């Protein structure tokens, strides 16, 4: 058993012809005595041979240069005006100051995050606090005298109907009122048809 594991450790070097004459002789003697190692080596050799037959992809000669150029383009473009770049010294000073300030302010950072910034990240959404009793709502409005054929029976059906009204309603009017503008920079919602200006009204 010890011989087998020793033999397997040399498989790679044997394939590459990178072992000594003594090692080669020992391994070949082992192959003659151990059919298991022999067949294992055959599998390895066949695999390596078939991999070697695969077509090789050659990189274009200007590959390196093009890649570097792309990386440079990907960095944000500066403003249109060429501005003087800050010298490294003040930048280093500012960076170290920022680190110091950050260390000092770290204990307060958590408190800040809970403020308006956190509010921005996840705006609150509408939510139900109690299921309104359907009966109490329906009771407030007079029931139609004749039940219309398209009228839905349950609250769920009405909800589905509301969706369909918003999304596919041909007989639905999307509201945007016309506003009439006067000569003297006055404006109000148009409440009457065209002849309304001549109409007689009391107020």
């Amino acid at each position, binding site marked *: 058993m010890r011989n087998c594991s020793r033999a397997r450790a040399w498989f790679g070097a044997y394939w590459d012809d990178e072992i000594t004459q003594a090692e080669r002789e020992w391994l070949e003697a082992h192959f003659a005595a151990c059919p298991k190692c022999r067949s294992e080596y055959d599998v390895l050799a066949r695999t390596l041979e078939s991999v070697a037959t695969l077509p090789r992809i050659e990189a274009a000669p200007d590959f390196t240069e093009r890649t570097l150029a792309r990386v440079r383009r990907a960095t944000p473009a500066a403003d249109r005006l060429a*501005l003087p770049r800050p010298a490294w010294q003040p930048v280093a000073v500012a960076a170290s100051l920022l680190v110091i300030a950050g260390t000092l302010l770290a204990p307060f950072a958590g408190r800040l995050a809970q403020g308006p910034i956190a509010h921005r990240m996840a705006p609150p959404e509408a939510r139900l606090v109690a299921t309104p009793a359907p009966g109490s709502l329906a009771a407030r409005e007079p029931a139609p005298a004749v039940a219309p054929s398209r*009228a839905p029976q349950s609250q769920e059906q009405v909800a589905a109907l509301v969706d369909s009204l918003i999304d596919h*309603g041909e007989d639905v009017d999307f*509201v945007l009122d016309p506003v009439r503008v006067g000569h*003297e920079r006055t404006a*109000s919602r148009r409440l009457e048809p065209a*002849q309304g200006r001549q109409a007689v009204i009391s107020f």
Partner: protein
Amino acid sequence: MRTGALRLLVALAATLVLAAPAARAQGTLSALETDVDVILATTRPSVVTVVNVRDLDAHKPGAAARVGSGVAVSENEILTTASVVEGARQIWVRTSNRLQLRAVLVGADPIANIALLRIPGVELPPLRFATSRPVRVGDWVIAVGTARDVHDRSAHSLGTVLFRHRDPRLPLWQLSNAVYPGLGGAAVVSARGELVGLLQGELDPASDGAGAADGAAANASFMLGADDLRNEYLQLRRDGRVRYGWLGVTTRAVSVASESEAGATVPLGVEVLEVAANGPAARAGLRRRDLIVAFEGVPVEDPMQLARWVTASPPGSAVRMVWVRDDLRRDGRPVLAESPAAVPQWATSVPVAAVVPGGAPSGTRIADLERRIERMNRELQRLRSSSADGR
């Protein structure tokens, strides 16, 4: 030690000065885009779609249902326009996270075109009224609401505040925002994400006023500002209605043909046809055949406009009015009474010509004739085309 600290300070100041332009490298436009995204993300949950279910068996456009926008101003209260909920049998509200809720109409004011809805059992994220900094001309604003022609029915539009109209009551702000059907009742928010107004509508194409001359006709939209909106909200919440002023007059428009523009008319004012006995107008000295020309320092052009201003004035308030009698200027300060009607008749639908002593005014007759001529023309055209097909 001292010079060391001084050097450090100088270096720090230099860094700040030099680093400032680098921080702007993101570009102004993309920064604007980011800001708009942030405002929308915070505003959107407060904006709802309002569905006014009228008659589901009706197959005429708008007869079955009306859809508009609304905005939450408290946990369970929504402001929208009165025209969105007009004639509703049921009102449903859909939130941005697709909750569908039945709403109760608390009250509506057709004069200011504002309605207040309440939804029991819900917690909405309300928008704050812009009280810290009132809206000004030139401010950037975003209209957020529902629109028919937009993906997912969720629309927003960026623009600026152009100017405030001169109406002495309920003045509208003109905006440059592009608007679409369905944005009636949409929230108009400032760059701070505060509610600066409620979207009312778009420029009436038939408007013969100064809209086009202002060069703003292409994208003219209108909002009621936050101050008036808040006042409406408080009154509707407290009383379920708004108390209207009443002058006690019956009027019609008077205009003359324009000399510079053929076919155009120049409004002169509003003629008093009748004065209610012992009403505010009668007590202030207004008489039949007087021509009212100004209200609170603003020229009066037509009866609807004057009626809107009078009605929107609180009962008991004294209003400055100017009128002409026998070519002489007169003025007075009638103290308005409270309107007997919950909703003034002139604001409900097409005004019906009142019975006026001395016969109907010529204006109504002309309009009637014009309509009949138009109808006959259409009939004639139809006959011509059908006879051409028969040949």
